[in-house]
């Protein structure tokens, strides 16, 4: 019997013929030396925090950027000098509350987000279920690839695709023309924005739902079926309640992503169907009123985090959490 691995010190690095391995081991020895110098007795309870440090710092950049926005939102633009005011005031929030254009903006964005969420979930449920349950490998692969291809192509490129499909010279109107039907104008309308958003959100919804379906043992569905329940009843009373955590996660993700979307309304809305994000951008870059833009930004951030927070408090982190329990 070879006493391999039982000798605690002096690893037999020299005996190994491959030079790369020796170099690798030496490198590791060097790193170990640095570690031993820095933390001779181990970092103890600090170790997890040292591991977390880079991620905490990167995320802190976001916090460091947002805190000044709070300050800016409390300063009114002085129209005479075009500089932010000296004193803190709630004037910017008052402006947002008072002007009907911002009420409409909020209503349009919320309404569209609600419609997009419902449509995306309705379209995603059968997709996720079939993708998880199908016994046919080719079908599973087709569904996975069809999902990931758009997921890996950005919003601008996908919006361009819709412009080509829906534009005046586009595919949709060409097909309608061949059929002898009058052309439709979906592009640059709110339904057009919703259409583009549903297609963009569908992969997100399916990816949040799929793990929830995987967690439901197929035997439960089979048992329900063998006890005489129709597929519809099984789906309604067995599957849906069990995948509720996934549904909640998908709804939160789709709703907040839509609520804060910029590119789809900007490209497919043609400037007449702006969402809150577009108004924030315009406040900063067209109106040059950073105070107003910051106020709107703070409100949108609060809306997004509050909705997500309430849902998470009610239903737990679900599939959103990093840490698994149980």
């Amino acid at each position, binding site marked *: 019997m070879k006493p391999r691995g039982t000798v605690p010190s002096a690893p037999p690095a020299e005996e190994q013929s491959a030079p790369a391995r020796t170099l690798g081991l030496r490198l590791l020895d060097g790193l170990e030396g640095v570690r031993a110098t820095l933390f001779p007795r181990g970092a103890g309870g600090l*170790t997890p925090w040292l591991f977390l440090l880079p991620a905490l710092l990167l995320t802190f950049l976001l916090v460091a950027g947002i805190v000044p926005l709070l300050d800016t939102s409390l300063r009114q633009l002085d129209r005479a000098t075009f500089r932010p005011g000296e004193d803190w005031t709630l004037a910017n929030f008052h402006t947002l509350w008072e002007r009907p254009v911002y009420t409409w903006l909020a209503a349009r964005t919320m309404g569209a987000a609600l419609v997009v969420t419902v449509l995306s979930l309705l379209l995603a449920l059968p997709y996720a279920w079939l993708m998880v349950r199908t016994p046919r490998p080719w079908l599973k692969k087709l569904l996975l690839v069809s999902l990931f291809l758009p997921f890996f192509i950005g919003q601008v490129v996908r919006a361009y695709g819709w412009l080509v499909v829906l534009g005046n010279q586009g595919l949709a109107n060409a097909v309608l023309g061949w059929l002898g039907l009058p052309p439709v104008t979906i592009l640059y309308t709110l339904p057009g924005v919703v259409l583009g958003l549903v297609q963009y959100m569908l992969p997100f919804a399916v990816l949040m739902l799929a793990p929830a379906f995987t967690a439901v043992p197929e035997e439960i*569905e089979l048992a329900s079926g063998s006890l005489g329940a129709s597929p519809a009843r099984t789906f309604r009373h067995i599957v849906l309640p069990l995948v509720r955590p996934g549904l909640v996660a998908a709804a939160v993700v789709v709703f907040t992503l839509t609520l804060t979307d910029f590119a789809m309304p900007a490209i497919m809305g043609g400037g007449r169907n702006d969402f809150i994000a577009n108004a924030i951008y315009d406040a900063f870059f067209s109106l040059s009123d950073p105070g107003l833009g910051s106020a709107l930004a703070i409100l949108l951030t609060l809306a997004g985090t509050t909705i997500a927070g309430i849902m998470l408090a009610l239903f737990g982190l679900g599939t959103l959490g*990093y840490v698994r329990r149980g």
Partner: protein
Amino acid sequence: MQRSPFTLLLGLVVAFDLVFLAVPTLVVVVISFTSGNMVAFPPEGFSLRWYGVLLTRPEFLAALGRSLQVGLVCTALAIPAGTLAALALARWRIRYPTGLQLYLLLPFTVPLVVSGIALMLLFGRMGMLGQVWPVGLAACVINLPFMIWAVAASVNHLDPDLENAAMNCGAPPTHTFFTVTLPAVAPGILTGALVMFILAVNEFLVSLMLVDARIVTLPVLVYNAIRNIITPDLAAVSVVYLLIAVIAIWLLDRLVGLGILLESKRS
């Protein structure tokens, strides 16, 4: 499940989904091969002229190069930060786990437009604007949760006894980490790195605020071009993005299998 009107309905919805997801992409591929000057149906004939246009217009190639640069910076930062964070979260009992997770989920709960403006103002104060690498840093910040998820998923497959065995055999902590822990979570790191790279190459809104006219990235270039007239050269750009996505999916499937993303996180 047996056949019934209900399963037929589900099947029809999935068929609709497949067409709905694919149509804009397929149409763009068809248009990119047109020989005409306009986007029109049916296309005027087959040619590669719009791909030729891409190669002769230096601004496209430069923008593509900058986007790839953004992707590399983002991935290089995300791999260590995300891997270490995921290991810490999944392995150790840390105080305030919920608060910590909510903090690390901030990049997702803060709207992208707000993140973009916040980072623009921050980087501006630090004198970092006008360069490409801060865009990669920003892309890493806003997408970091994806990296942590990907690695956390594969920490599941790591048996702590393996590390204990290595230590028992005399391996110092650093050796154990690099020769046992890291190889075990490598599939998650690869998945996360690919996703981060793709997201950064496609990153639009935050780039829009961090770049100026001299250093536009490819999605910003496409966005600016869309606002004028829709020409087939952008279809060729879109096909470049499609190719990048196809390569990424192929790699992901070869390296870890696409099915990894269907796995339950609660097992």
